[in-house]
């Protein structure tokens, strides 16, 4: 009984989360039009580390993050304005990108991965691998 009730609540939450992600998506499009790719990425990454169990939410969030990642042209420049608090969550999404196998996505993720590892160190990679609880 409890499990069924939990699933019901989660589905409710999932709808709310997806709505939030749609809001994020519109904000990101607007920021990209204003040529603010780093702000767009920060917006995409925000709120991602909360435990979202629902696969639809995870996919929806990934689409939004992916959009922002692919829009980055100046990787070095991005890091000069990206706060370190975003490093760990960014690393997780880079690995998700690398796992897609899609050539343009992988190229971009690899480019960013190189710079992120320089900045954040191997510890950042470790944390993205070790965190099985907050999988994105």
């Amino acid at each position, binding site marked *: 009984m409890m499990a069924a009730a939990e699933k019901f609540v989660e589905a409710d939450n999932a709808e709310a989360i997806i709505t939030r992600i749609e809001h994020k998506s519109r904000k990101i499009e607007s920021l990209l039009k204003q040529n603010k790719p780093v702000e767009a990425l920060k917006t995409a990454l925000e709120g991602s580390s909360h435990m979202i169990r629902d696969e639809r939410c995870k996919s929806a969030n990934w689409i939004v993050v992916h959009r922002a990642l692919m829009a980055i042209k100046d990787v070095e420049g991005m890091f000069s304005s990206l706060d370190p608090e975003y490093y*760990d969550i960014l690393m997780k999404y880079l690995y998700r990108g690398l796992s897609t196998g899609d050539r343009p996505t*992988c*190229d971009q993720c*690899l*480019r960013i*991965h*190189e710079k992120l*590892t*320089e900045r*954040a*160190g*191997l*510890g*950042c990679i*470790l*944390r993205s*691998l*070790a*965190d*099985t*609880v*907050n999988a994105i």
Partner: protein
Amino acid sequence: MAAVAVHQFAQCITCHAWSPDHSMVAFCPNNNEVHIYKLVNDKWEKVHVLQKHDQIVSGIDWSGKSNRIVSVSHDRNSYVWNREGPEWVPTLVILRLNRAALCVRWSPKENKFAVGSGAKTVCVCYYEQENNWWVSKVIRKKHDSSVTSVAWHPNNILLATTSTDGKCRVFSTFIKGVDTRESKTGSSSDPKFGEQIVQLDLSSSWAFGVKWSPSGNTLAYVGHNSMIYFVDDIGPSPLAQNVAFRNLPLRDVLFVSEKMVIGVGFDCNPMVFAADKSGLWSFIRFLGERKESLSGPKSGSQFSEAFGKLYAQAKHGLSNDTVEPSKIQGAVHDNCINCIALLNKKGSQTKRFSTSVFLFR
């Protein structure tokens, strides 16, 4: 701090412990024996070989006042070695384990020792005078996975454990007849043996290397996710600080003082952490010198070559054969450090997984 002495005892050392006067060191050279070396005229000489275990000795502790060695092994046994004349005489302690023993520590009063095991249990052993043997009391069903490390609070009763289930727990190991009740309000308020005082779920990956600060007010342990955790106010509402660092994970820690901790691990270079005046912990520096290679990624040895090939793919298939594998210059250890032990109030010692024993002051 700098390395004071360097000595290569073996190809690989799994655990070690110092004698009370620090003239001897006991370690396991990655086999089923315990070797004891003595410093004679500035040279280390092998003085004893303790052979009783059937498999790798995973933990050794040498009690400071009673001069007893306890060893535990993957063979699920533990022996307490007493010095009788020139010989070390073993006493088998029946732990009743069905998995390997992983770590062992004497309690501060040296009347008990705790063993962490792969059976998800902790055995707390005490000496029964009447029967002239060591009895094992087991803390069961409290851990979800192997217990990787144990640490005693200065009060000889509280025991902290870390486990591969990612959690750090504190238990009471109060044993009637062995421990004296210290509470003033009466016997009913003392926690019973095996009662869990607090469970810390800060790491989402394996936890290792728990230690108490000298006063027992702070607890420190590490996670396999390159993080170190500092916890104050052990009780119903503990205060935890999660410190993330950029390097490879640590395996063990040591409190040099109330406000300074040294962590050792896969980066082969001890890391110093300290708390500032407001109690905020952060990484200060490495103990050994670390000269990075001038070109290429900042990671060393086999990493740079691998990373070179990895990133080369993004650069439109240009192969990067010219990337030289760079070695971290000046690092004292060549391989993972898995254990750090306090030598005396002024010094501490770390051990290398692959070869030597190093002394730092």
